[in-house]
């Protein structure tokens, strides 16, 4: 609620989306910066991969930046998230430093996981990020467990579990929602429905049209938002997190969104059309957010340009840091298997 009053100049407070009213211009500019950082991080990762500096594979979330940032805005370090294989956005939104993320991508000792995890396992437990996950649906019960711990410890924090539409077909999704609901745990389930589990569309893999419809089975609210609209995601997040902190239990938020890149580096996009991809690119969440902020008089064109430039500079520096960082020593291979 810091500087909402400033935000009334162009359109008046009442016309602003809830999240805009709550956050005010400065926090919203920070949110935009994070969305640009995520976009540039992933474009940068793609570039370094093409140059042969990054091995393995990667799952880019380009086109999904609004859900990551919109959901994580009200969170502090004591709140938890669990993330997915497409987790760079969640990680940056939760406060990770792109320097150490890039270093992890490069497999360096300065990476979040000292080069042992790579893109799919970036975690920062001290900051409440319980980790990206290579297993679809793997993070769901872990978030429920974190929420159980929060309740047992008498804290007011929350746990967020990001997952994709594909994960909602896994048993872990159903077991997790059921347990969270019966125990009224402070957890928010956030489905980023990007329409495809790898190549299989939700039309072919789900018996209901919406993931949020499944909330009915667990007697919890199921909320559908335009996942490419920051204001909608952020407003739903505020409601769900408030509900969780108040002890009223979990919410399922479904963000309808799209990844414009393929599932991973091996994807040849045989399962969708160019037209479909272009149509979604026209709904780019960053452009929409910038337009909305501009329309409400919350940001100027110069400020947007400055934010973009700052994000680009930060990512360029992160890549340099990663390249210059030391590689792990093979003699330390089995160092962190057990606590010593």
């Amino acid at each position, binding site marked *: 609620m810091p500087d909402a009053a400033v935000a009334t100049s162009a359109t008046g407070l009442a016309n602003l989306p809830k999240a805009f009213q709550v956050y005010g211009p400065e926090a919203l500019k920070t949110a935009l910066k994070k969305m640009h950082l995520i976009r540039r991080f992933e474009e940068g990762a793609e570039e370094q991969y093409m140059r042969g500096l990054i091995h393995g594979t990667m799952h880019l979330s380009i086109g999904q930046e609004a859900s990551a940032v919109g959901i994580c805005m009200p969170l502090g370090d004591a709140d938890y998230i669990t993330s997915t294989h497409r987790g760079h956005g969640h990680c940056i939104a939760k406060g990770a430093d792109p320097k150490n993320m890039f270093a992890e991508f490069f497999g360096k000792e300065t990476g979040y996981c000292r080069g042992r995890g790579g893109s799919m396992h970036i975690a920062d437990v001290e900051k409440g990020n319980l980790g990206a996950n290579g*297993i679809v649906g793997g993070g769901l019960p872990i978030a429920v*467990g974190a929420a159980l711990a929060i309740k047992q410890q008498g804290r007011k924090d929350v746990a967020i579990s990001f997952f994709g539409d594909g994960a909602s077909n896994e048993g872990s999704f159903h077991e*997790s929602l*059921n347990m969270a609901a019966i125990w009224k745990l402070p957890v928010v389930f956030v489905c980023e429905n990007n329409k495809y589990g790898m190549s299989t569309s939700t039309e072919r893999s789900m018996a209901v049209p919406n993931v949020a419809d499944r909330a009915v089975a667990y007697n919890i609210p199921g909320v559908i938002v335009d996942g490419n609209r920051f204001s909608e995601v952020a407003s739903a997040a505020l409601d769900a997190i408030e509900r969780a902190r108040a002890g009223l239990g979990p919410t399922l938020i479904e963000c309808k969104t799209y990844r414009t890149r393929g599932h991973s580096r091996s994807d040849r996009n045989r399962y969708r059309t160019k037209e479909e991809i272009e149509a979604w690119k026209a709904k780019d969440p960053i452009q929409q957010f910038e337009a909305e902020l501009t329309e409400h008089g919350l940001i100027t064109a110069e400020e947007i340009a400055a934010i973009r430039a700052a994000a680009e500079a930060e990512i360029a520096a992160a890549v340099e840091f990663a390249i210059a960082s030391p590689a792990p020593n093979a003699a330390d291979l089995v160092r962190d298997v057990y606590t010593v």
Partner: protein
Amino acid sequence: MDAMIRELSFAEALREAMGHALETDPRVFLMGEDIGVYGGAFQVTGDLVHRFGEARVIDAPIAELGQAGVAVGAALAGQRPVLEFQFSDFAALAMEQIANQAAKIRFMYGGKCSVPVVMRMPCGSGTGAAAQHSQSMEAWFAHVPGLKVVEPSTPADAKGLFLAALDDPDPVMFFEHKLLYKTKGHVPTEAYRIPLGKAEIKRKGSQLTIVASAIMVLKALEAAEELAKDGYDVEVVDLRTLRPLDTETIIASVKKTSRLMCVYEGAKTLGIGAEIAAMIAESEAFDYLDAPIRRLGGAECPLPYNPDLERAAVPQVPDIVAAARDMLSKRV
């Protein structure tokens, strides 16, 4: 250890250990199916829900994968969960969270956190519960780097190893053979710990080392008494922990006796006996062997229902005696 020595059953010793942990550490909670007013399928948790309440002795829905994940998440968030699988067989449903998450998180995250959970695994045959309720799957879990695997044989060991497992910062699979639950033994009242990774020589001998764990220790000891009547002097090493494996104690024993037999209830092929035999073959104890190493493991089939078939599927005392006689009669 203390002046007051009492007899407790294996189940009571475990309950006492859990009660002590719940009393002294607010981070500890128990979770599982029917562990509350029902007292646990094998009455191990007993009355703990009445002493500590439903918030700390949690009856969970039947959702093994979910429960295991909840335990992992709670551990990452600072708690000390104890998860009871009703039967260890059901841990197959939770293998994802055990093998992909709990075991790997510490390593995958660069050693910056750990996952202190204890998963209690009632295992083993002998109850007529047939193939999906009778397995001994210790080797499954012992094969996964990141997991520790404990398997006590006596009530006193159960208590001490459980408290040590709970202190351990890493995930521990705690196997409890179901036929041991009612066995009795002296259990000190204090809250003592038995370090993980240390075997114990349960019977000293000079001619043959039998390595075993859980109920096979009892069977090996019985066999050793039988063999003693013929003048054979058998040493019984109780592993107590399968991973980390106390190779030192086994090697020292084999160097002393020159003969090694591994007895275990899990399927013989690729089991814990194979690991111990190979470890000895790679060690300096190999040169001391006076007979080929012998493995007595479970039959290569799922556990059958018929009681005679069930007995035939796992090593019994007469099998151990016969195999030992065979080894010992071939004097070098």
